[in-house]
């Protein structure tokens, strides 16, 4: 084993497919054996101590979520692995499924055991044919090896995992929409509470976690909370898979310990912009994420610090725009994306996006006035404040952040754009 192998959770730079034998030869499934032999309450405690937070976007503490399902009176419980990975520019779950399927399955089995779930559903993005077939095969192999199915490793614990092909919309990654789509209804979000941990699939307590989140678990159980915490920062232990794309030299997946700065990510991991170009803006967190300027790249990758800086790490997509790019085009594309993906159920998202799209088009065509820009800001703020689900709440992030950092690009496109953005008119 190389040093790198021991150091991180995924060690993606190897780009290596780890089959079951290789996985086990490196100590894989040792964690499961350990957990099956231990008091589940202690294992949950380890997860909480490790400080693992959800990697699907909401960064909810995973140990706590497992405990919530576990403590439910209802004995019939489910685990759902969210592999919908719909955020544009994100390909980390795909990588895990195609390269580290058993690390994922071991994590799922441990989480299911701790939550007391004996049925699991792997909800795979519609377009992900290859990951789906790798997972199908890996589940079958794990079953044959006694690592899934009946009486896992002789412990008496059983777990079946079914594959479910996603409904093909971005919104279906949202947990309640995902549940609806499994239940055969339209993939639209539902009122919370009840939360899935209380009443999830078919009304039963359900643990829903992201692929990356679950894949962290075997390493934590194997090496302990202290080791895990040593990887990241006090605020955000562990590592984050970052999907790098856009105008940089090295695009692809990297694993970054929390605490590294976005500058490190762009310049060290990503090799910086292409020769002769400069970084103009960096989009963090995919379509629903914000745009930040070069000057802000020193903010560390860390949930707390990012929140203070107004950055949502989200799925961990980092997209670099160099100085050839237009901010307005980028924002406009994202608004179009959300308008296409919005379920249309709630007013702020549906109608706010309609107005936002019209205004962006006017801006790009040079037909807008400053009043339009102010309205754009107001509509997106209301979408953020009042939309029903995370889609609408985040859909305006690109507008709000770009207005903040690149306000002059908006003003300069306005017919009456001389004035200051927040000049007399906004009174």
């Amino acid at each position, binding site marked *: 084993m190389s040093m790198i192998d021991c150091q991180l959770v995924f060690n993606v730079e190897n780009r290596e497919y780890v089959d079951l034998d290789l996985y086990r030869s490196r100590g894989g499934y040792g964690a499961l054996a350990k957990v099956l032999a231990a008091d589940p309450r202690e294992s949950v405690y380890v997860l909480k101590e490790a400080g693992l937070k959800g990697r699907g976007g909401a960064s909810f503490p995973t140990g706590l979520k497992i405990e919530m399902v576990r403590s439910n009176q209802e004995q019939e419980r489910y685990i759902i692995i969210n592999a919908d990975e719909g955020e544009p520019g994100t390909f980390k779950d795909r990588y895990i499924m195609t390269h580290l399927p058993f690390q994922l399955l071991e994590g799922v089995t441990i989480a299911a055991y701790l939550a007391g779930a004996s049925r699991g559903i792997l909800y795979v993005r519609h377009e992900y044919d290859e990951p789906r077939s790798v997972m199908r095969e890996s589940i079958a192999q794990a079953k044959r090896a006694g690592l899934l199915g009946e009486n896992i490793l002789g412990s008496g614990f059983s777990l079946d995992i079914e594959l479910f092909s996603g409904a093909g*919309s971005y919104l279906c990654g949202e947990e309640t929409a995902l549940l609806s789509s499994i239940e055969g209804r*339209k993939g639209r979000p539902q*009122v919370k*509470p009840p939360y899935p941990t209380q009443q999830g699939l078919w009304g039963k307590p359900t643990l829903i976690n992201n692929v990356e989140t679950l894949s962290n678990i075997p390493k934590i159980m194997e090496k302990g909370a202290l080791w895990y915490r040593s990887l990241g920062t006090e605020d955000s232990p562990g590592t984050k898979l970052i999907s790098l794309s856009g105008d940089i030299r090295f695009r692809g997946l990297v694993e970054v310990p929390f605490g590294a700065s976005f500058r490190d990510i762009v310049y060290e991991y990503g090799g910086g912009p292409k020769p002769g170009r400069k970084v103009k803006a960096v989009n963090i967190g995919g379509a629903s994420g914000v745009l930040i300027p070069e000057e802000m790249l020193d903010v560390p990758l860390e949930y707390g610090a990012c929140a203070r800086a107004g950055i949502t790490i989200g799925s961990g997509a980092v997209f670099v725009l160099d100085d050839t790019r237009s901010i307005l085009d980028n924002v406009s594309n994202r608004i179009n994306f959300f*308008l*296409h*993906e*919005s*379920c*249309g*159920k*709630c*007013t*702020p998202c*549906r*109608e*706010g*996006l*309609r*107005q936002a799209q*019209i205004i962006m088009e006017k801006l790009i065509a040079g037909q807008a006035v400053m*009043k339009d820009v102010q*309205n754009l800001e*107001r*509509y997106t*703020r*209301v979408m*953020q*404040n*009042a*939309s*029903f689900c995370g889609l609408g*709440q985040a859909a305006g992030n690109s507008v709000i952040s770009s207005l903040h950092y690149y306000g002059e690009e908006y003003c300069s496109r306005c017919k009456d754009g001389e004035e200051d953005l927040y000049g007399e008119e906004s009174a």
Partner: protein
Amino acid sequence: MAMVEITINKRTISVPENITIMEAAKLNGISLPSLCNHPDQKVKANCRVCAVEVEGVKNLVASCSTKIAEGMKITTNSPRVRETVRTIVELILADHPQECLTCIRSGECELRQLAFKLGMKEVQGVKNTKRLPLDFSTPSLVRDPNKCIKCGRCAEVCHHVQEVGILYSHNRGLDIGVTPEYGKELKDVACVLCGQCVLACPVGAIYEKDETDKVWEALGDPDKHVVVQVAPSVRVSIAEEFGRPSGSIATSKLVSALRLLGFDRVFDTDFAADLTIMEEGHELLQRLQTGGVLPMITSCSPGWIKYIEHFYPELLPHVSSCKSPQQMFGAMAKSYYAKISGIDPKDIYVVSVMPCTAKKYEAARPEMRDSGYRDVDAVLTTRELGRMFKHEGIDFNSLEDGEFDLPLGISTGAAAIFGATGGVMEAALRTVYEVVTGQTLEKLEFEGVRGMEGVKASSVDLGGTEVKVAVAHGLAHAKQIMEAIAAGEADYTFIEVMCCPGGCIGGGGQPYGTTNAVREKRIQGLYEVDQKSEFRKSHENPAIQKLYADYLQAPLGPVSHKLLHTTYTNRCQHELQ
């Protein structure tokens, strides 16, 4: 009830636990804006106009879907809340054809009222000018998808109260629409035209097909003898159109107002309700004596009839062959009344005032022409009648009392309660009991069939024989009984079904704001009418007795058979397509 302390706008108050922020605010004198919320429906939380701030929560929350918790600090009046709510309303208005001046809903539109309340001065967003076609395909309803604000209230009632389930929220994003499947028209799906969706809608996106112009025209035609009949439930709901409390009894003012409109005769559907009891009661006895199909099910509710024709056609032999009171009235007006008044039936124009949109469809059915003419020419809902009164400037509340014309205006208390769930059953039992036992019924109230419970089962002693009866209102409840019959598990003799929750007092043509609480008040009104009636048993109605003596001879006789009974049609889904 356990109480919790919360703070609303810096004021600490104590409220019952487990209620929503919206409810808590209401208890403390603040009505928060709302559009998708409806007191009888589950929370949908999609309009978002009820947004408020909660300390410690980053975004605003929907007050209709968020439960309060101990110590919660809520702000409903901050600039942030104000901007949000007004912007959401602005966004809705930008997507809305603002045709309030000519909109059927104008006076009572929840959206228009909210916009007014918020003092909306300007819609800055770009207006959506795309227009979708309206659906005029049925005799009862009009759907205007352009005015739809996608609140889902109609679909909720169609699915969960009626379980007809033909309205869905379709598509996504800007293409979302709450429509029948595949954008079909109402005539092409199994819609029963009950109009419960109309009552649920906050705006003018679904409404009754207005027939007031037809009626104005008839009233203005000197060659027509225009008679009007008023359904039992209208007398306890029409006054709501003039600001009176729900359930106010307004029979005599209603009669006077109808005279002012210029009707030549003001008659009462209650007369025909008594006639229905005579025919239906004897049909039941005949089925009992001759081993006919039991249980027998009532047939006065046209939405219910359309429902069973669509969904349980194999059970149609259970349905009484009696026409509804509206149609019995029409047939009598153009035969018996024509004869005794010496007016040519072709010149008689029958208008009915109904709580119901399905009645428009019923009157247009091809079966309903047994007099040789269309038996009922025009059907007005309570709302349409209210509009006609307002059009004429009739000051309803200050009118002098009037009385129905003779003889088709004489009725009993048994007929009045037809408008409430359980009423037809109770009226029938009063008559059947006396016919079967030959004794006088002492206690006229059959409590077991009264009230808002969805399915009421009861048993009645008919001089030694126990008869099991059941009453259902709202089609979801009717469905339960139909399933039981289909499974051979319903050992009832007689079943009353009303399409609408609460019966006709809750019909789809009643004034806006018909909630379950309002329904209960109207029901109380009808029981009061019954109690104060001179006659309380249909067979004691002297006008009915005379009708049989002079014209019909006997219940179920040949004349009755021709004029008062009907047949049904299998409208099963498969055959629709």
